[in-house]
C-alpha cells in the first residue's frame, strides 16, 4: 500500500462534496446517490486503513513546512468513527431531508465536513490541522445557515463564537511553534510552565470549544432548533466531540506532559465539572426535544474533559471511552428526535406525548440510548462513567460529587423527556402518527445496538481501541475492561439513578399528570422505603435545583446579552457612526474629490520632502 492512500479519506468527500454543489436541487436522486456513494467509499477506506501505521508528506507553502498526514493507533478509530457516523447519518438524511430546501448545499457541507474532519484527525502538522479546523468552521456556518428562517442569526452567532476560539487556537499554535521550534505534532514535546502553559491554554480553548464545553456552548442549543437535524446528530453530537476530545487528548498526552499534580489538570477538571452540572441543569428545564438533547450534548463533554483532566490512566481511558459512547448514544438520541420530528412535525414536548406505542422501534431505541446516557448498567454509558468517576475520585471528592450530581440530573431529565414525549396521553393531532420508515430507523438501530455491544462487551472497544492510545507504559499493566472493580462506586451510581427515578415519579405525581407506566416502580416493596426517605431529602433540592438551574439560565442569558450588547450596541454602533460620516463626506461633487486628491498629494509630498 502506498502512503498516498492517506489522502483518500480527505479527497473522496471533498471532491464529491464539490460535485454535489454543482447539481441543482432538481436532481435530488443524483445528489443522494453521490453522497451515499462517497460516504460508503470513505467508510471502506477507513476500514481498510484500520490498524495501519502510515505517514505521508508533501512540501507545502515553502519555508520548510510540510503537508504531513499520519495515521497511528489513536487516529485509527477516530477516523473509522468519523466515516461510520458520516455514512449512517447520510443514510438517515436521505429520507429526513427529502422535502427540505437547499438539498445540494446540505449534502455538500455534509461531505465537506467529513473531509475536513478526517483531515484534522490525520494532520500531523499543527498548521495543516488548523487549516482543516477552519474548514470545519465554514461548513458549520453553512450547515446552520441553511436551516429555518432564524438560522442565519444563529449561524452568525456560532461563527463568531467558534471563530474567536479558533483565533485563540491559532495564537496557541503560533506560540507552540515558537516554543517547540517545529509544528510537526509528533515532534513537539513541551513542559507545562510559563509560556508553555499559556500555549496549552490557548490550544485547550480551541479544543474544548470545538467539543462544545462551557462557556463556549451557547450556539449549540440555538442551532438545535434552527439547523437541520442530521447536522445536529453529526456535528455537535458526534464529530465535534470526537475532534475536540481527540485534540485535547493529543495536546495533553503527546504534546504537553500533563501530570496529575499540575494546576492545568485541576483547571481542566473544574471546567469539566462545571460544564456537567450547569449544562445538565439547563437541560432539565427545556421543553423542546432537540434543545434538551443539545444541552446534554454539552453536559456530556464535561465528563470527557473531567476524565482527561484527571491525568490518571483510568480517568483518561474513561474520558475517551465516554467520548465514543457519547457519540453513539447522542447521535442515536438525535436521530430518534429526527424520527419524531419527521413523523409528528414537531419537537415541542408540550405537543408530543403518547406516541411510544405508535412508534415502538423509535421508542425502544430511545429507551436504550437514554439509559445509556444516564449510565444504567450494563449499557456503555455506565462503564465509561464509572471509569471517569474512578479517576475523579482519585483526584478529589468534589469532582466526583459534581459528576454524580450530573448523573442524577441526566437521569431525571431523560425520564422527563421519555415520559413527556412517548408516554402519557396522546394529543388529537398525533393520532395518525406511524412508525418512521426503515431507512431512518436503520441507522438508529445500528447505533443503539452498538450502545449495547459496547456495554456488554466493553473489552472490545477498551482493549482494541482506547487502551492502546495510552500505550503500555502509561497503562502500567492495568486493564479497565470488564465490570468495574470498585463496587462502592457502582452502588453509589445505582443509588443515584434510583433516586432520580423516584424523584421523577414523585414529581410527576405531585404535578398530577398521568404516570401509569411508572407507577408500579413507585409501589415496589423494596423501593418504596427508599422512596419515602428520599421524599423529604430530595424534594427541596429538586426544587432548589430547578431554581438554581433557572438562575443559571438567567445568568447565562444575561451573559449572552452582554456579549450581544457589546457586539450590537457598541461595536456596530460605533462602526456605523463612522460609516455614516464617511458616506456623508462623499457628496458626489467632483471638485470635492479633486480637492481631496490635491490635499492628499500635497500631504504626501510634504511628508516625503521633510523626512528625506
Amino acid at each position, binding site marked *: 500500500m502506498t502512503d498516498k492512500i492517506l489522502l483518500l479519506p480527505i479527497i473522496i468527500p471533498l471532491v464529491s462534496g*464539490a460535485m454535489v*454543489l454543482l447539481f*441543482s*436541487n432538481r436532481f435530488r436522486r443524483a445528489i443522494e446517490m453521490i453522497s451515499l456513494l462517497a460516504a460508503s467509499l470513505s467508510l471502506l477506506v477507513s476500514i481498510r486503513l484500520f490498524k495501519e501505521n502510515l505517514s505521508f508528506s*508533501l*512540501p*507545502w*507553502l*515553502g519555508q520548510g*513546512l510540510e*503537508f504531513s498526514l499520519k495515521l497511528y493507533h489513536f487516529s485509527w478509530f477516530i477516523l473509522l468513527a468519523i466515516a461510520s457516523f458520516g455514512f449512517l447519518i447520510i443514510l438517515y438524511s436521505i429520507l429526513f431531508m427529502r422535502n427540505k*430546501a*437547499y438539498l*445540494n*448545499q446540505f449534502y455538500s457541507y455534509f461531505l465537506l465536513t467529513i473531509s475536513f474532519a478526517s483531515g484534522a484527525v490525520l494532520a500531523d502538522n499543527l498548521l495543516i490541522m488548523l*487549516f482543516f479546523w*477552519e*474548514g470545519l468552521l*465554514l461548513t458549520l456556518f453553512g450547515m446552520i*445557515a441553511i436551516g429555518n*428562517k432564524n438560522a*442565519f442569526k444563529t449561524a*452568525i452567532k456560532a461563527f463568531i463564537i467558534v471563530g474567536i476560539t479558533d483565533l485563540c487556537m491559532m495564537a496557541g499554535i503560533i506560540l507552540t511553534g515558537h516554543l517547540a521550534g517545529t509544528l510537526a505534532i509528533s515532534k513537539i514535546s513541551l513542559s507545562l510552565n510559563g509560556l508553555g502553559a499559556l500555549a496549552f491554554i490557548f490550544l485547550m480553548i480551541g479544543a474544548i470549544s470545538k467539543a462544545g464545553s462551557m462557556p463556549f456552548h451557547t450556539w449549540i442549543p440555538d442551532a438545535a432548533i434552527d439547523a437541520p437535524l442530521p447536522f445536529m446528530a453529526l456535528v455537535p453530537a458526534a464529530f465535534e466531540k470526537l475532534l475536540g476530545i481527540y485534540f485535547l487528548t493529543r495536546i495533553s498526552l503527546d504534546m504537553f506532559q500533563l501530570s496529575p499534580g499540575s494546576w492545568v489538570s485541576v483547571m481542566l477538571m473544574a471546567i469539566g465539572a462545571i460544564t456537567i452540572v450547569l449544562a445538565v441543569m439547563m437541560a432539565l428545564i427545556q421543553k423542546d426535544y432537540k434543545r434538551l438533547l443539545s444541552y446534554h450534548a454539552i453536559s456530556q463533554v464535561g465528563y470527557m474533559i473531567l476524565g482527561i483532566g484527571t491525568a490518571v490512566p483510568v480517568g483518561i481511558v474513561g474520558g475517551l471511552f465516554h467520548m465514543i459512547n457519547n457519540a453513539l448514544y447522542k447521535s442515536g438520541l438525535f436521530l430518534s428526535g429526527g424520527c419524531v420530528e419527521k413523523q409528528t412535525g414537531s419537537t415541542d414536548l408540550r405537543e408530543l406525548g403518547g406516541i411510544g406505542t405508535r412508534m415502538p422501534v423509535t421508542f425502544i431505541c430511545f429507551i436504550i440510548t437514554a439509559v445509556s446516557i444516564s449510565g444504567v448498567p450494563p449499557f456503555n454509558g455506565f462503564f465509561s462513567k464509572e471509569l471517569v468517576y474512578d479517576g475523579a475520585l482519585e483526584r478529589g471528592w468534589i469532582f466526583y460529587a459534581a459528576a454524580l450530581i450530573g448523573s442524577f440530573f441526566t437521569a431525571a431529565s431523560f425520564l422527563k423527556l421519555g415520559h413527556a414525549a412517548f408516554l402519557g396521553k396522546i394529543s388529537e393531532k398525533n393520532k395518525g402518527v406511524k412508525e418512521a420508515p426503515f431507512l431512518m430507523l436503520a441507522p438508529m438501530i445500528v447505533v443503539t445496538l452498538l450502545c449495547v455491544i459496547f456495554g456488554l462487551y466493553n473489552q472490545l472497544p477498551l482493549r482494541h481501541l482506547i487502551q492502546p492510545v495510552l500505550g503500555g507504559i502509561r497503562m502500567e499493566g492495568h486493564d479497565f475492561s470488564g465490570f468495574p472493580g470498585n463496587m462502592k462506586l457502582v452502588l453509589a451510581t445505582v443509588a443515584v439513578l434510583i433516586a432520580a427515578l423516584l424523584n421523577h415519579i414523585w414529581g410527576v405525581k405531585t404535578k398530577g399528570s398521568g404516570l401509569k407506566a411508572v407507577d408500579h416502580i413507585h409501589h415496589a416493596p423494596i423501593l418504596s422505603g427508599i422512596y419515602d426517605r428520599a421524599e423529604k431529602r430530595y424534594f427541596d433540592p429538586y426544587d432548589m435545583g430547578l431554581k438554581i438551574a433557572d438562575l443559571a439560565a438567567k445568568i447565562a442569558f444575561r451573559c449572552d446579552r452582554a456579549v450581544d450588547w457589546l457586539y450590537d450596541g457598541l461595536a456596530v454602533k460605533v*462602526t*456605523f457612526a*463612522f*460609516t*455614516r460620516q*464617511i*458616506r456623508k463626506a*462623499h457628496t*458626489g461633487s*467632483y471638485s*470635492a*474629490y*479633486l480637492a*481631496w*486628491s*490635491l*490635499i*492628499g*498629494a500635497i500631504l*504626501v*509630498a510634504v*511628508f*516625503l*520632502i521633510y*523626512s*528625506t
Partner: protein
Amino acid sequence: MYSWFILFPLLSVIILNLPFRGMMNKIAIWYALALSIAQVYLVLFPVNIVMPFLQLNLNADIISRAVLLCIAIVLFVTILSAKYLIKKEDKLFNFVNLLFICLAGMNGVTLVTDIFSLYVFIEITAVASYTLISFYKDKDAFEAAFKYIMLSAMASAMMLAGIALIMLISGDTGFFAIREALKVSPHSSLIVFAIAIFICALFIKGGLMPFHGWLPDAYSAAPAPVSVLLAGVVTKTLGIYGLIRIMVSVIGFDGPLKQALLFIGALSIVVGALAALGQSDFKRMLAYSSISQVGYIIIGLGTGTALGIFGAVFHLFNHAIFKSSLFLNSAAVESRLGTRDMDKMNGLASKMPVTGITSVISCLSAAGLPPLAGFWSKLIIIVALWVSGYRVYAVVAIMASVITLAYFLSLQRRVFFGRIKEDSMNIKEAGIGLTLPAVILTAIIIGVGIAFPFLRDAIKF
C-alpha cells in the same frame, strides 16, 4: 515576442474595421475570445515569436506575467458577459473594438520599460474606459465618466510633471536610466517632490483613499461588463501595477516612501471597508470593497520586502479574480431583478443557486477565509508586515478583515439568504453568459487556494 501583446490587439482593431464589416460583425466576438485564450496560453507557456522589423523596448518579469494573465482571464469573462448582455450586434462590435484597445493599453502598461511610454499606455486605457463607462449613454454613466475624466486629467498632469522633473537629473525616461540617476544624484527636494506627485498620480489611477473619489461612481454606473473589466483589471493595471513597477524597477524603497505607502494602504483598507458597510447599492458596495482590498496590496508593497511584494502581486491576481466574479454576480442579479438596491432583494439563492454559490465563495475569498485563494495572499501580506516589524499595520490588516467579513456577510444576507420576496418569486437563474464565467472564476479561486501551498516552492519570485 512581447511586442505581439500590443501589436496584435492593434492589428485586430484595424482588420476588424476593414471593408468586410458585415462578416466581421459576426466573428468579432469569437475572435476576441480566441485572442484572450491565446494570451493566457502565451503567458503560461511562452513561445518566442521573433518580430522581424520593429524593435520595441519591452520586457516582462514574473510580476508583469501575473498581471498579463489576470488581464486575459478577466477579458475573457468580460467578453462572455458582454455577448450575453449587449444584444445589438453593431453595439457589440464597437464594444469589442474598445476592448481590444483596452487590451493593447493594459498589455502595454505591463510590458513597457520606459516611464513616458507607461504614461502613454495608461492614458490609452483610460480614454478607452471613459468611452466604455458611458457606453449606454445614461445619465449616471456620463456623470461617472466626467468625474473619472477630471480626476484622471489631474493625475495625467501630475504624472507628466513628475516625469519632466525626474528628467532633470536622468535626461532619459527609461526605467534603468532613471534608477541609475537616482542612485547617483543626491535626493534634492525637487526630485522628491517629483516622485511624490508621480506616486500620487498613480494613487488616483488606482483609487486609493483619499484619491478615490471617482472610483465608486465609475464602478457602479458603468455597464455590467465594463464594471467587471474596470474593477478586475483596468484600475489594477493602471494604478496598482504601475505603482508596483515604479517602486520595484525605478524608485526603490526607502523609509519615508514605505511609510507613506503603508499609511495610505491602511487608510484605504479601513475607510474603504467602513464605507462599504453602509452601502445598499450592490455594485457600490463592491466598489468600496475594491478600495479596501487595494489597500492590502499597497501595504504589502509598502513592506518593501520580497515576501511583501510577492503577497501584493498575488493579492492583485486574487482580487482581479474574485472581484470580477462578484461583479458578474451583481450583473446576474441586476439582469433578473432590474435593480441593484440590496434592500429590494432577499433569498435569491433559492432562485439563482449558481450565482449565490459563486458569490459566497468569492466573498469568502475576499474576506480571506482558508482554503480559498484570498486567504493565502492576505496571510502572506500580514506575515510580511509582521516580519518587517510593521506590527501595527499587521494588526490593522487583521482587524479590517473582520469588517470585510461583516460587509460581505451583510451582502449575502441581504441578497441571497433569507426569505424570498413575493415579487421575485418568478425569477430564474441568469443566463449561461453570466453564470459560466462566474463558475470559471470560482473554480480558479478554489483551485489556486488548494494548489498554492503545494506550488509555493515552485514559484520563483
